[in-house]
């Protein structure tokens, strides 16, 4: 029981497997007497799913920590900068639109700026009043300059990327630079110790591969946690109805067509369409509730969305159908096995949380790696508590987008039924009728969504907070007005200094970004 954890076996490639390998191998030496041996087993005959084309700003820190050059990442993974999500037609369906930017509102820590914006809500949207980012997105501008060092920014950003290329890129880096062993083989059996721990996995050609800790990155299959250990799956379909996605690649009309630096999410009658711009193509998909719309109708809506945005002589790639079972496991770390990625749970990509959850999961495994088997159960318990909490927060935050809509179709009306709304979210919504979300609404370290995100969604969707008419001793409205004015000046400065997303990416291709 007090044997040190020396060998980690990751089952499954894809973004989850390779990100986990990279994050753990960047934290721990993989060579020498005190190194951790990391082996990733990837089946040559299982295709990775290749969704998850949007990341959060956390990916910048992750890539930097793994020792990756941002220039190489951008070029090899067909990646672009993502600064926000834009939600079209979510409020009423009549050409409405709002942004959820990655930057916090200007002056967020000086004053709860949302309170002071209420008085101006008829003149300016919350995002436009408090950040430069929504303005930059509308003009197609990049979040940084060619002179900005790698990973540095003028406005906070994450990425849009080609998930397939990303896995290959990470694989190369993990194997060549970080000493991760790569075994291309199919796992045919899982062998237990007497205590129920996994002792080894049997492969077709490489025999039994033993380990002290096994990481299940096998996607929806959940080979170790789900199939082997039968850990319960907690469905969330009663909260988030979407269970099917149709995905397609769309060519640009011209080689130098503008690239949006935000994800565009456009509400439909029974779901929504994502639109993600990469340098070489767009990734577009319709995610919907199969109980509210047929696949044929959903495909028709997807085609109607795409048609005006592409050249008539270009062809779409084949439309791929993906089934989603929204929910997560009752625990993620069981005995000496932890599931990371879709093996642990999956939810529609409305806020592109999948890659961020992988990063957070692998980071906690890397940083809290148990010294030995004896303490592993305690680590596992703490891990499970943390990630159950995180899944619940994601689900509540996604649900928030739906419950505030005024759309009238059955799907949208069903989304507002009280039995579909988690109790904690319902409480918050009641509270927020009279106060704005702020520091009391988020309390964990590494909270997934800061209070600012709740503000962007609530006030973007037109939610009304009626602040009580109470006189405060300290009047912060002067500070708030200064913050609003500063934001206008800062926005002008950035608009003059920044080039378009496409121009910057072309320059990076030509000159690269420097490290400092």
């Amino acid at each position, binding site marked *: 029981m007090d044997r040190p954890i020396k060998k980690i076996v990751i089952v499954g490639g894809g973004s989850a497997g390779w990100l986990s390998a990279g994050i753990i191998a960047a934290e721990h030496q993989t060579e020498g007497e005190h190194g951790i041996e990391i082996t990733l087993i990837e089946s040559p005959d299982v295709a990775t799913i290749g969704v998850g084309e949007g990341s959060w700003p956390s990916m910048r820190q992750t890539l930097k920590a793994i020792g990756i050059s941002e220039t190489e990442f951008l070029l090899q993974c067909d990646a672009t900068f993502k600064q926000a999500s834009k939600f079209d037609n979510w409020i009423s369906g009549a050409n409405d639109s709002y942004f959820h930017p990655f930057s916090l509102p200007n002056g967020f820590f000086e004053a709860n700026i949302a309170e002071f914006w209420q008085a101006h809500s008829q003149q300016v949207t919350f995002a436009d009043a408090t950040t430069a980012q929504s303005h930059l997105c509308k003009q197609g501008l990049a979040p940084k*300059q*060619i*002179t*900005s060092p790698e990973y540095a920014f003028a406005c906070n950003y994450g990425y849009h990327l080609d998930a397939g290329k990303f896995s290959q890129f990470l694989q190369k880096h993990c194997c060549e630079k970080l000493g991760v062993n790569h075994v291309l083989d199919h796992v045919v059996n899982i062998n237990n110790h007497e205590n129920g721990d996994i002792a080894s996995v049997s492969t077709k050609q490489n025999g039994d591969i033993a380990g002290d800790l096994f990481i299940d990155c096998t996607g929806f299959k959940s080979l170790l946690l789900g199939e082997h250990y039968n850990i319960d799956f907690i469905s969330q379909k009663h909260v988030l109805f979407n269970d099917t996605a149709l995905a397609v690649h769309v060519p640009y009309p011209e080689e130098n067509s503008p690239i949006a630096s935000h994800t565009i999410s456009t509400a439909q009658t029974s779901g929504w369409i994502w639109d993600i711009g990469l340098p070489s193509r767009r990734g577009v998909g319709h995610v919907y509730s199969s109980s509210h719309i047929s696949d044929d109708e959903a495909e028709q809506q997807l085609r109607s969305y795409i048609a005006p945005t592409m050249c008539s002589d270009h062809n779409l790639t084949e439309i791929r159908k993906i089934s989603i079972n929204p929910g997560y496991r009752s625990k993620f770390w069981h005995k000496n096995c932890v599931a990371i990625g879709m093996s642990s749970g999956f939810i529609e990509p409305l806020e592109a949380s999948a890659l961020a959850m992988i990063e957070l999961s692998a980071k906690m495994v890397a940083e809290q790696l148990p010294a030995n088997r004896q303490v592993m159960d305690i680590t596992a318990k703490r891990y499970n508590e943390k990630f159950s909490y995180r899944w619940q927060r994601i689900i509540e935050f996604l649900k928030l987008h739906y419950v505030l809509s005024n759309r009238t179709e059955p799907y949208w009306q069903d989304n507002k039924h009280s039995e579909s709304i988690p109790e904690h979210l319902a409480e918050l919504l009641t509270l927020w009728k009279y106060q704005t979300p702020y520091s009391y609404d988020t309390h964990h370290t590494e909270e997934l969504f800061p209070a600012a995100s709740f503000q962007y969604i609530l006030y973007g969707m037109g939610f009304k907070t009626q602040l009580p008419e109470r006189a405060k001793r300290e009047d912060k409205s002067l500070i708030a007005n200064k913050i609003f004015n500063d934001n206008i000046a800062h926005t002008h400065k950035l608009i003059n200094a920044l080039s378009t997303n496409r121009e910057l990416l072309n320059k990076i291709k*030509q*000159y690269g970004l*420097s490290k*400092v």
Partner: protein
Amino acid sequence: MANHALVNPVAHKDIKIITDRSAKYGDNLWYALTFPREFRSAQAHYPIFFNKDPNTGKFVAVALFGFKDKENLFLDDDGWHASYIPASVQRHPFLIANQTVTEDGVEHKKRMLTLDMDSPRVSHVEGEPLFLPFGGNSDFLDKTASMMEALHLGAIDGQKFTQTLADLDLLEPFTLDVTLNNGSQHQMIGFYTINEDKLDALDIEQLQALKDAKYLQAIYMAIASQSNIRSLIDKKNALVAAQA
């Protein structure tokens, strides 16, 4: 917008170039590009640092003349007080253009001297003539042409130099905090310098490669040139005192 014309003895036979140094001719520069082949002359007067070309993000070496935009502490009503002025400043109003010419059916690139006709340095009255009264280049034009050639080749070598420094991770950003005699504080950001600890940690092969490229001397001259910051501060103090 610059209006560049190929220098030619017919169109430009009466053109003179004003070589005086003054703010009205655009000499009120905060810094200007420099390159290793002129470091020996430049480091005698100016601190040499690095910054990024705003168009490409690539590092370039620059000679510093002041602490903020449009401040050249070497320049006053009597001219530019230093025995050497970087070639990238001296070149105005000339530029080198690449022209594709076909000779004997073979296309090749030729470097041609061009002149910015809109520059306030271009005159019919005062300054150095480009051509002699009865034809032929003036000494001034010949000297300018050879300086432009040196600048062209020096700048190309300079790009390789700064790329080498960047590849070896030797450049680091620094913030210059200056406190003047009158107590006012100024901060200068956006410049880079050579990290001496990293330089000391290079292995023998890396040092040999730098030496072979004739960059080792340039690195030490750039480091030594930082002591010119002191005289730049002195000039600034004198200026502030005179204006007080």
